């Protein structure tokens, strides 16, 4: 599998560290209740199909990226910088 880093271009999977579902960007408020934190830390949709997940380009530019890909076919549809994805989510 090769992932398209928005900064470096397409790179081998070996260059990236996998964090998990991009849900990791939506950190709850520190005072949120345990159900919300459970949702964030543990519970997953875990789709068989299209997903968005978070990767760190550790052996490259050091950017966190959100990859849009398919968990069954391993087809990769695209990637954005996590900071842009965050900004977009914040804007609604």
């Amino acid at each position, binding site marked *: *599998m090769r992932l398209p880093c928005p900064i470096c271009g397409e790179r*081998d*999977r*070996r260059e990236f560290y*996998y*964090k*998990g*579902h991009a849900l990791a960007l939506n950190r709850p408020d520190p005072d949120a209740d*345990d*159900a919300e934190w*459970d*949702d964030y*830390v*543990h*519970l*997953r*949709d*875990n*789709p*068989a199909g299209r*997903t968005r*997940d978070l990767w760190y380009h550790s052996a490259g530019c050091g950017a966190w990226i959100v990859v849009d890909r398919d*968990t*069954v*076919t*391993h087809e990769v549809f695209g990637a954005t910088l996590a900071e842009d994805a965050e900004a977009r989510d914040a804007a609604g």
Partner: protein
Amino acid sequence: MRFSALRILKEGLTGNAGWGPHWRSPEPKREYDVIIIGGGGHGLSTAYYLAKNHGITNVAVLERGYLGGGNVGRNTTIVRANYFLEGNSQFYSHSLKLWEGLEQDLNYNVMLSQRGQLMLCHSDGQRDAYARRGNAIVNQGDDAELWSAEKVREEIPYLDFDNTRFPIYGGLMQRRAGSARHDAVAWGYARGASDRGVDLIQQCEVTGIDIENGRVTGVQTTRGPIRAGKVAQVVAGRSSQVAAMAGMRLPIESTVLQAFVTEGLKPCIDHVISFGMGHFYISQSDKGGLVFGGDIDFYASYAQRGNLPMKEHVMEAAMTLMPVIGKARVLRSWGGIMDMTPDGSPIIDHSGIEGYYINAGWCYGGFKAVPGSGYALAHLMATGQPHDSAAAFRLDRFRTGRGLMDEEGTGAQHNLH
């Protein structure tokens, strides 16, 4: 039909024409007392123990493919009881005891081979940790031996003892550990369940869970709706999809685990050997192939085939541990979908939906658990109380943070196990 030496002799002399199918293949009834979703090792053993231990025989096992076609038929068959943490350790201890009586119990040759498993250590710290683990295992009544480097060298001379990064300091041996024939375990439980009245329904995919007023009433399947007052999902890598049908999200992420086998060789590896540098383990099958594997592919996947970086890593680990393996040719590799939990330990629990139960999160270690898991889930479903051996496998331990069982000590997070 019972297996016996006499019967095998007789069949051998009469052209093996007298063997019949091992289980019935009935049409699904419209209603059962209990439905088990998933005909893998855990689903079949659950059905067997429901019937055998609790007399609950109006049971259907619904399998979307064929019995034993999932991970139970794809794994590397290591069986052991050398877990460390309270909660896990008593469960695997119980499961290994069930393994030891399984062939007599099922009248089926599951080819349990207690050849011993050796976990190698490569530093003083790792040796201390193994000594502590070994003591804990012995304290609970199981077996463990701490082997010195000299002892390892005597028994397994072909390892690379003086590797600069991973020199061998010794190892922790469990003699009662070993391997078993994966298909036979599934078939043996299937036959035992079927003989006691359980309906095994293949080619029957569950597509919906019927819930009325917070209570399960049955399932929708590709072979029509089937009603039941109690339903358990026992679907390993597909746990999240089936739970979603019941409106639940689980603390599970599915990833691929690969395995490899070489061409058949003369007997050379007598035990199961685990390299202590991370995840790499190897044993030799009865056919002579070296069966080995390593870590999961480390990202969410349902591809049921592995990626190249992990193949490379596993081969490197093999060459580091035993350079002699470079002479062998790899015949095949394959992958299975693992239901990974954040702490790496499983779940056997009531779901919170009346009558609906969850057995999941076996990660890469659920084959050794097949007897113990079915035993415990059957107990829970029949009595409403968790079995002592599996009382710690609670679903709510993630939300509450109490009772997490992180054997590796890396943290209870999805990407760390």
